[in-house]
């Protein structure tokens, strides 16, 4: 047996003729934060649901903490905490009643659940709201309740499906602090986290990131290694008018993509072409009647990498 908490091999999930997940392999180590990113419909949620056994894979096998998810499903699930994309606590029950329900149903005894629930509610910062109905919580508090409920039985593996979508930046920050504390051993220790997210700043906080497209993981690496793929290939442009600059940059044969970031442009160029483009782009802009105030090679952001991967023809 390996020390991988999650081992998924050749996962396939078809809905009719749609291949939502099309051959995914995943290996998650203990204490790892693994980010699953990709555009909507890439298969992130379906992958998550396969990993918790909410969906049955069309093909492939999953081992969770050494348990076969198909044959030892209840044992495997007892090691999992799962926060679904949709809020799935009972809105007509209070915070404490929700936690109690999920604690007991997951096997905490009548003497264990209360101290444990209070501990975890304090950890997520909901201990002042135990008597509030879940339906009356704010979006961020709902997510924290979901997290608390997923953590109440001290799972070894935490699956978070877009936990911060629609949550304000401050709460997102809070939420991530909680996740990082969990993994660094403050709570239980050695917890592994699989998190799906559409946000690149969140992806860059993960130890490893898997990029999904059309049901496949087409790139998987640490955020810095992923960024390194585009080293020397991203230029930053400032000048005016910005639309003219954009148009001119697009015309260049060696430019793959132009993306606007406020008052500047990120231009992704073909490998090895950066220096040549740096030379000819100012002239092209001048010829078109634009002014260039700044042009330089910048370290690529994860976002640049993902845009590049999204457009690629992998898979």
């Amino acid at each position: 047996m390996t020390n991988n908490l999650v081992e998924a091999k050749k996962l396939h999930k078809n809905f009719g003729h749609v291949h939502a997940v099309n051959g995914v392999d995943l290996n998650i180590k203990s204490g790892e934060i693994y980010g699953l990113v990709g555009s909507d419909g890439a298969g992130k949620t379906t992958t998550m649901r396969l990993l918790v056994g909410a969906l049955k894979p069309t093909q492939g096998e999953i081992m969770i903490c050494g348990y076969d998810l198909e044959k030892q499903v209840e044992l495997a699930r007892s090691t999992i905490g799962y926060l679904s994309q949709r809020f799935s606590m009972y809105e007509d029950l209070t915070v404490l009643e929700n936690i109690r329900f999920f604690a007991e149903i997951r096997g905490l005894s009548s003497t264990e659940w209360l101290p444990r629930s209070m501990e975890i509610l304090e950890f997520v910062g909901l201990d002042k709201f135990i008597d509030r109905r879940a339906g009356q919580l704010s979006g961020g508090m709902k997510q924290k309740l979901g997290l608390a409920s997923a953590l109440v039985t001290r799972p070894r593996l935490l699956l978070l499906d877009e936990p911060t979508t629609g949550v304000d930046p401050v709460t997102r920050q809070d939420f991530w602090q909680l996740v990082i504390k969990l993994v660094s051993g403050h709570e239980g220790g050695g917890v592994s986290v699989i998190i799906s997210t559409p946000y690149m700043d969140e992806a860059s906080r993960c130890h490893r990131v898997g990029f999904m497209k059309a049901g496949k993981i087409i790139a998987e690496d640490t955020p810095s290694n992923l960024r390194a793929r585009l080293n020397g290939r991203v230029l930053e442009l400032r000048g005016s008018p910005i639309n003219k600059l954009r148009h001119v940059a697009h015309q260049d044969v060696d430019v793959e993509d132009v993306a606007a970031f406020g008052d500047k442009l990120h231009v992704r160029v073909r490998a090895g072409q950066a220096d040549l483009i740096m030379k000819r782009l100012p002239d092209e802009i001048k010829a078109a009647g634009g002014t260039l105030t700044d042009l330089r090679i910048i370290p690529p952001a994860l976002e640049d990498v993902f845009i590049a991967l999204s457009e690629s023809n992998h898979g």
Partner: protein
Amino acid sequence: MFNSRISSIIRKEFLQIVRDPRTLAMIIVMPILELFLLGYAATTDVRNISMAVWDQSKTTQSRALLEAFRAADYFVIDYFVSSADEYQALIESGDTRVALVIPPDYDRRLIEGDAQVLMVLDGSDASVGATALSTARLVGQAYSTKIMNGQALLSGRTSSSAPVEVHTQVWYNPDLNSAYFNIPGVIGMILSFITSILTATTIVRERERGTIEQLIVTPIRSWELIVGKLLPYVILGFIETFEILLIGHWWFGVPIRGSGILIIATSGLFLMSSLGIGLFASTMANTQQEAMMTVMMFNLPMIFLSGFFFPIAAMPKFLQIVSYLIPLRYYLTIIRSLLIKGVGLAAIQSEVIALVIFGVVIMGAAALRFRKRLD
């Protein structure tokens, strides 16, 4: 059998039921509403039927006959008429429903022993007509018996050679009180409606609101989830049974002649079918509305073919056969027999067996379809 997982589900269900005032009101008020509707408005008892009389004889004997009709409590003599046209007009206008015509030679023919009177009935309302007809026959028979007895005494014959007596006995429910018939039916109807709707919606609601996704990833087993979800509604079903029985007994005077244990046991058996239908419907629906519609699809034909509203014996052969597939049919027979006749288990055993078979089949089918998964 009550492990902690099941009891947490049960506690959660009760909390949710208590927090949902509309459902709670439906659970408590609906039986009372139905009970009073069917106990009063839907009564098929006919009393105080307006009657017109054309007494062509006008003798002591004819007046005595009228008195017999009056005493029967079913008829009120509102009009005395003196021609056929008159009572015809009264019946046509709906002012009266029955006309009694006593011929001029009534006295003489009574002595000869073949006295005949004419009853004209308005048959447009079948139930009033039928009651009027049967009551008139009863009154006539009883009265003629009395006269024959009187004649026997006059002619000095001994009682051993008394004229033929007409026995008319209505068993169990001598007043033909329709509440006796309807209220046990209401128990069956409420049990099948409320429990199947509630179970179907409570399960589908988890799916609709997304909470099922959280439930799925807990180690709870499918059967534990089913038991935990259904048990609160079993308890509610029993509360409703008692509610209806008590009101039926104290307010409408419906007797409870059979054994209480048998009533509870057979009601529990019927609940199994009804919850099974709810569970089955929940596996076919994705929204609470769909669940409601699916349950109605099961329940409406069930109610109509159960013999609650229309006697099964009067149905076409095909529908009679279909009615064998309807658990409510068996339960209605059982609960009516237990309450009104006070029979023992032996008298209802075939119905009980039918309920067991139906309950096991529908529960089994529903449990097999029930998947603790999203797909």
